[in-house]
């Protein structure tokens, strides 16, 4: 009887303690999650924004290639199958995150002069109201914005290391070309740029999955 009473007293004592401990544990876990969520939110917002813009440019580049091919007349399909060595390689290089982000940034910066050159060439070949020109304008503008976002993302990850500008001075552009060469050049630039964007998107998704979760 007494034992039973003691047991009851003990039980009565243990019950609020257990509740309190549970509450404290819950609060600790929740605060941890809040901190993690906050960090992830920062990482996610920046990277998510970059990734969305990459997808948008990717989609726009796909549309632009279609529009471009449609505007170049006959043999447009063959134009993009020719190799043009002066166009940058779309592959992202680097071993770690920093190098990859820098590589992305460098490639984007490298393609901007090519896109500008294509725009200039197409200005001579197309009417001012041509959708090709509009598409090129948007892709170029969004590419500049993407480069800026990559830079900001890099700064958010490595605030003490400034991102390096492309080495070797200004991007090499092709010499004066005839119309066919211009058409081929333009299509190759757009096609290569699309591949670059695909690679960037892939890398950013990988970063999103790895980097932001770890943080």
């Amino acid at each position, binding site marked *: 009887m007494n034992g039973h009473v003691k047991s009851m007293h003990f039980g009565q004592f243990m019950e609020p303690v257990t509740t309190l401990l549970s509450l404290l544990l819950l609060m600790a876990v929740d605060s941890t999650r809040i901190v993690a969520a906050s960090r992830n939110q920062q990482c996610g917002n920046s990277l998510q924004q970059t990734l969305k813009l990459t*997808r948008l440019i990717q*989609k726009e580049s796909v549309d632009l290639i279609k529009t471009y091919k449609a505007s170049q007349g006959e043999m447009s399909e063959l134009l993009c199958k020719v190799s043009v060595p002066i166009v940058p390689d779309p592959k992202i290089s680097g071993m770690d995150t920093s190098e990859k982000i820098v590589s992305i940034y460098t490639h984007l910066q490298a393609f901007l002069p090519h896109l500008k050159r294509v725009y200039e060439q197409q200005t001579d070949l197309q009417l001012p109201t041509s959708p090709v020109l509009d598409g090129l304008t948007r892709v170029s*503008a969004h590419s*500049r*914005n993407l480069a*800026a*976002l990559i830079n900001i993302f890099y700064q958010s990850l490595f605030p003490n290391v400034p991102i390096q500008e492309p080495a070797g001075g200004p991007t090499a552009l092709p010499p004066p070309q005839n119309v066919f060469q211009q058409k081929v050049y333009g299509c190759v630039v757009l096609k290569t740029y699309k591949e670059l964007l695909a690679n960037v998107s892939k890398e950013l998704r990988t970063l999103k999955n790895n980097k932001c979760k770890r943080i």
Partner: protein
Amino acid sequence: MESAGQMLMLAALMLTAHAGSQNYLLTFPHPKFVRVGSNFTATCVIINRTEVTADDLYWNLSETILPREHYSKINNSAISVTFTVTSDKPEWLFCLCRNPSPNIVLNQGLYMHGIYLQKGYAVQQPPGNLSCVALQENTYISGTITCEWRDSGPQTEQDPIIYTLHVRDMTQGNYTTTTKTKAQVSLGTYPNHMNLEIWVEAKNSLGMVESEHLKEEANWFVKTNPPSDISVISEKSFPTSLLLNWTLPIDKSYFRLMYRIRFTTEGANTWTDVPQEDTSQDIQSFRLQNLQPGTKYISQVSCKNARRGHGRWSDWSNNATKWTPEAPPRGKPDLWMTILGSPNANGQNVQIACKDPVHSNGRITMFSLMIKAHRVTNASTQLENTTEMISRSGDITVLKQVPIPDHQSTQVFLTAINSVGQSEKAFLGVPERGKERPSVEDLRVSSQDGRLLVEWRLPRSSEVSEFVVEWVGRGQMDWQKENKSTTRTHITGPLEPFVCYRVSVYVLRSGWSSKATSVEAFLKEGAPSEAPSVSLLGVPGHDGAHLVWTQIPPERSRGFISTYTIYYRTGDATRAVTVLGNSSSYKLTSLSPDTTYDTWITASTIAGSYKGSTHSFTTQKYAPGEIEGIVVGVSLGFLFFFLMIVLLCFYKKDVIRENFWPRIPDPGESTIKNWSPDYSLKADLPRESCVSGISVLDVDVCDGRSLFDEEKAGLPLKKDKFLSEEHSSGIGGSSCMSSPRQSVSDSDEGGDMADTTASTVQYSSVVASSGYKGQTPAQPTLFSRSESTQPLLDCEENPDTSAQEGSRQSQRCSRPTGNNLSPQGAALREELQPLDFCSLPEDAENNTPAEHQSAASASSYMPQLGGYRPQ
């Protein structure tokens, strides 16, 4: 320190002013703008003049002299003024001189200087409620951002607030300026997925403030086009469902979209929204459920950025319309019948009508109607089974008009049919006429909140299934059914104002209808649109008139006629009488006789009145019987007067006789016959003084004019008279030459009376001698007087013939004596003959000699004269 600085400024200004200006007064400062509400201080300085001091200066602001208590004298040649700027209009502040010296007066333009004050307000508050939007253009977002904001407070025309809208992202920025509160900024390419910072600067000469900075992702401001190509799919296997499909207005790479969907049935005024949680996902189709089968639905879709708080809802898409598949009708049709006209000897006609079942689940194409009539007397039952679709007016379908004879109850069964199936059977029973159960009590209908409120009290018998509220107006009938516990309800059907509705409430007991309890009501009363024309009942009276009019029927009165006001006017006086609205006649009283009245009537409701046409009538001059009274009165008066005359004549006959019929001496009774032959004429000779020897009976002596009148009356008679009188004058009492004239004067009353009078007055004879005394001086004048009272002539008894037979009468009358003419008489006649020319000197001129001869020869008084026997 402040005054020292002011003095230095003064000195500097004086130097500069002296170099560049001819004015002897100088004011400062000259600010570009002055803030409204601030205190402004201006200073005026006298330059190189001694005849003017600071005491002579004064300030004038917009032609109003500023009070001196605002002045502050700096020294003998400078004065300042401080005042509060109140008006926001630009104005001049002048420093003027009031010294009256001739030099100043002549050079007044040099002794003044002004400051042009342009006003402005400090920017009081930052532009608020900044909101921006970027619209979709083709398949992408336009690079132009449109922003709106609230203004920053008052401003003046001289110093308006300039707003600058700034938009900036990571790589670029742009701005635009405006004086309005709306502006656009173009960024070339819209920076999707980039962060934007947008703000507005408000600036004028007196300050600058900034609005809050909107820092959001660019897609936060996007408003896309609505979803396009909305298609609705109806599937027969799902009659309560429709499937919506649409096309995304913008690619998913810009952002994910969320949607909102709404739908309604055709003709309905309200939309039903699909819950947001069902459409917040990235979808391109949605299935609407729990719809009514066989119903036409209209759907719309809208979209926005799915990210919470981002983007704006697009406009609604175009309507997507589709019918849901039909299903068998659910429930019963709403069956009702209304009595047409009044019951007659053969019974009554009723019209069977119905409404579709609440859930008709499609278009009702047909109604199956069965009427069962049961005659009580022989307990026979007649069945009439028809399937028909008659006419549809709105949601009411008129099925059939059937006569229901007396002593017969009727049962009606009805089912509604659509393309898929049929409804349950509705029943309505009409009991035998005269055996209906009682209806509700204390039925009241009133207008409330633009609707008609119907209230009643439950009948004593509680076996009530439901109530039917029926209303009829402008020939349109409608009804609604209420459950058995209802005692007040609003009429749900569309009602029009100013229309009289007859509202009836029936009680249904197990489907059998009761008697009706009815009242009339208006949803809203208005002033009547017409007024009755007043007319007279019969003929207007002497002081009254009976007016009648026809009451305005409720369907045209636009309200309950509360009163009729009768106006009647004569001249400028108008009087009015007000009677109740149920009156149709009125008797005007206290009217003036023989007066024209204009009368009209105004019909009044609680909302106003309307004046009817004017009718005029004239009251009679005399009251009925008044004329007859006057005639009778006059007649009685005349009769009384006549009787009085008669009585007077009767009682005064002697006097009358003496006056009108004087006693004439009868010659037969005259004593002349007793005269003695020996009577000495000489002794009886009249005195010489009576030259004429005439006894004057009338002063009208020798009146030739009278003679002329007599001639006009009857010349032949006159001739005889003259002749007669000439001769009778010898008989008459007058011996004057006018004695014959006397006889004529006596006959002035007329030809009829002439002889009578002549005969009656010829009671004397005159022997004229003295007038011709000169001719017969030797012969004395003879005069004799007859005392006879007898008429000399019996012709008075026959006056009608006297005129024609005057001559003969004279002869006849004189005949008794003519035959006895003695020689003395003949001699006397010869002496008297000249008398013929005495009294008628003018007559003699008018009469021809032959007539004289005739008259002379026809004289028959000679025998009478012979009565005078020679002396």
